[in-house]
């Protein structure tokens, strides 16, 4: 039963196969790396560089799924698959704002999980 609204840790838990230290490391890395990738995506969008937007959205899409952040994954996939087609570059800021807002909620839930994991470890 998933206790969270924005993340689902089933995948990383299966990957860890009981290694709590690995899960803690991955959550900490996630909290560091994802904002860097989002910053890269924002820069590519403000430079109106659609190749780079596609590249960073692709990178984010699979990274988001490491913590089961499905809503974030859907936004990244939408950008990746449409930025050179039906999605106008002008639509990107709205999608990126949604991404930022959702990621704040993801971070809160990850912090909550970290507290639980550190207490049990």
């Amino acid at each position: 039963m998933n206790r969270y609204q924005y993340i689902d840790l089933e995948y990383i838990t299966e990957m860890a196969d009981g290694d709590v230290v690995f899960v803690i490391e991955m959550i900490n890395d996630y909290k560091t790396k994802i904002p860097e990738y989002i910053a890269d995506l924002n820069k590519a969008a403000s430079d109106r560089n659609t190749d780079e937007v596609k590249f960073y959205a692709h990178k984010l899409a699979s990274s988001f799924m490491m913590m089961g952040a499905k809503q974030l994954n859907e936004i990244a996939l939408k950008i990746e698959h449409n930025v050179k087609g039906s999605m106008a570059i002008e639509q990107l800021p709205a999608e990126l704002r949604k991404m930022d807002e959702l990621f704040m909620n993801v971070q809160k839930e990850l912090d909550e999980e970290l507290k639980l994991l550190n207490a049990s470890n």
Partner: protein
Amino acid sequence: MARILIIEDEDLVRKALEFRLKKDGHQVTPCMDGRQGILTLETQTFDLIITDLMLPYNNGLEVVNRSKEIHKETPVIVLSNIGLEHVVMDAFNLGADDYMTKPFSPNELSVRVKRLIK
């Protein structure tokens, strides 16, 4: 134990791959981009290569192509995201042996690796 080259630019995915394969008893060499991956496979031998398709500098198709040019018998697994099936077909045409869609199941990874290295 097999010697496995991983070429994946996404840090979290690469770390997860490395963790799982080491847990299965393999020796893992990680690379962060296509250029570093090609340089590594040109200078070392591996029992298996796992490469992402969308990589900086040299993409995964270039990695598969170079790998098959110099180590034809070394199996290659390509990793792709949902929606990139057409690129996977290109990878198969270049000689890739298998593919997995991210996020890959850890158990499926173990089984596919075991099948290719025996």
